[in-house]
């Protein structure tokens, strides 16, 4: 058996020079310092994305799009298909954990200022993937065609409609018409299973290749890094095995969550029912949702919601472009201001999320 494998390896190696790749992997090291733990969150996010692809494909085997079929097909998956409840719950739970780990990954990169030269493109692709992940969450949320999803989509697409000039056509494009209907469901289904995964995979490829080429970022010397020649750990197999162990733990956590806290399906959407009391978006949109509640109807010349949405758009753009205006980190100097901004953003998100949760 072993010789057979060796022969196979030799056969491939002779044609595509695998030896180079092995050499490369053998020379890859992960720096060890007191912030090393944050290196694991990118890998965990990657693992969760892989789970989403696998469970998503499984769900596709039974899911039916369309106003008359979507809700019923999820009911069918949950009640009739063997382990359908498990696959669907894991898909929903993973979606949430994925956003969470991607957020932790993003904030850790932010606080380490790892977006600084020469890793601006890695940061940009990461941020784009984060926005796509929110798009995945938003489009996937509608697919069961339940009451909560229906109103969440109405509100979400209406928010897109508030954007000056391009808003209205954008809203009609997203909804597939003036209102949220079966046409919206078809579109979101297409976005969720084809458009977004396609773009995401390309960005993920660039992101990972850049990390291989440039290696792991190390903290700025006066921000916790030892400065001197760092202790390191070989990526293969030391770091990879630790990665895999963590993935195993995460998979177990997902199974526990899916079994003990199965995802609700709720009531089927009805375009002629009032929005149910206590309606809330998913937790990762809560802080924005809660902010919108506090902004009054009219603010100077603006409608309040226009103001709120512009505020978040500008915030998101500035955050995404941080490698280009954080000059100090670019020069390798300590950048206290950026740290304070990051702490403020996290504080804001946590407080508003708690307020939204308990309201």
């Amino acid at each position, binding site marked *: 058996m072993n010789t057979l494998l060796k022969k196979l390896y030799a056969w491939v190696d002779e044609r595509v020079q695998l030896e180079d790749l092995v050499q490369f992997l053998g020379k890859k090291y992960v720096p060890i310092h007191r912030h090393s733990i944050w290196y694991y969150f990118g890998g965990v996010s990657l693992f969760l994305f892989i789970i989403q692809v696998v469970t998503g494909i499984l769900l596709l085997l039974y899911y039916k799009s369309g106003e008359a079929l979507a809700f019923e097909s999820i009911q069918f998956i949950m009640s009739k298909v063997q382990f359908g409840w498990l696959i669907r719950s894991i898909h929903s739970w993973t979606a949430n954990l994925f956003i969470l780990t991607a957020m932790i990954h993003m904030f850790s990169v932010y606080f380490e200022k790892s977006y600084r030269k020469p890793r601006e493109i890695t940061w940009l692709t990461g941020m784009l993937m984060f926005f796509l992940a929110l798009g995945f969450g938003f489009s996937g949320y509608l697919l069961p065609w339940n009451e909560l999803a229906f109103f969440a989509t109405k509100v979400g697409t209406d928010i897109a409609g508030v954007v000056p000039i391009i808003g209205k056509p954008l809203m009609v494009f997203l909804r597939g018409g003036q209102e949220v209907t079966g046409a919206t469901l078809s579109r979101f289904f297409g976005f969720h299973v084809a458009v977004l995964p396609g773009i995401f995979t390309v960005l993920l490829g660039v992101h990972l290749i850049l990390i291989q080429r440039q290696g792991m970022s190390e903290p700025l010397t006066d921000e916790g890094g030892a400065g001197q020649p760092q202790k390191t750990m070989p990526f293969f197999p030391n770091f990879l095995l630790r990665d895999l162990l963590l993935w195993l733990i995460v998979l177990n956590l997902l199974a526990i969550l899916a079994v003990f806290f199965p995802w609700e399906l709720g009531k089927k959407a009805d375009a002629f029912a*009032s929005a149910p009391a206590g309606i809330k978006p998913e937790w990762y949109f809560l802080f924005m*949702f809660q902010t919108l509640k506090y*902004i009054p109807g009219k603010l100077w010349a603006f409608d309040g919601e226009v103001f709120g949405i512009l505020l978040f758009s500008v915030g998101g753009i500035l955050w995404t472009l941080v490698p280009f205006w954080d000059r100090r980190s670019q020069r390798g100097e300590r950048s206290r201001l950026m740290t304070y901004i990051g702490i403020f953003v996290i504080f804001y998100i946590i407080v508003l999320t708690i307020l939204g949760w308990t309201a």
Partner: protein
Amino acid sequence: MKTSDGYHRVDEEKRDFLKWILSGGLIAFVGSVLYPVLAYLKPPAQGEVEVSSVKVGKLGDIPKDSGQIVKFGSKPVILLRTAAGELRAFSATCTHLDCTVQYRKDLGVIWCACHNGKYDLNGHNISGPPPRPLSAYRVVVQGDEVFVSKES
């Protein structure tokens, strides 16, 4: 074209002309590929039946101090009956972000669950984020039948 010293001279005018033709052709080509795709993305206008009036039901079936959602074509309308027995109807679409409102008996207001917007029983926005009042519909009672129709 050959100059006297034997070199080929670039005819700038000819080159510019070719640049224009080629880049113009390229743009026209890209445009003719993109146009059908973009046009395809725009959902066609659905021939909506123009509704001017709908029958809701019998007056006796509508309790006092209540509200209900009525299908008005493709739009939801909220029909209220006040504690005094007066009938009123408004668009049920919240002017904030498009949710569907409901009557809150305990507060005596029209309420939107999405962002806690409140309207009084005349449809005026009184608290929370809604920027505008709900547009009013006309309620007509003929015999025992209740009709909702567009404000004329």
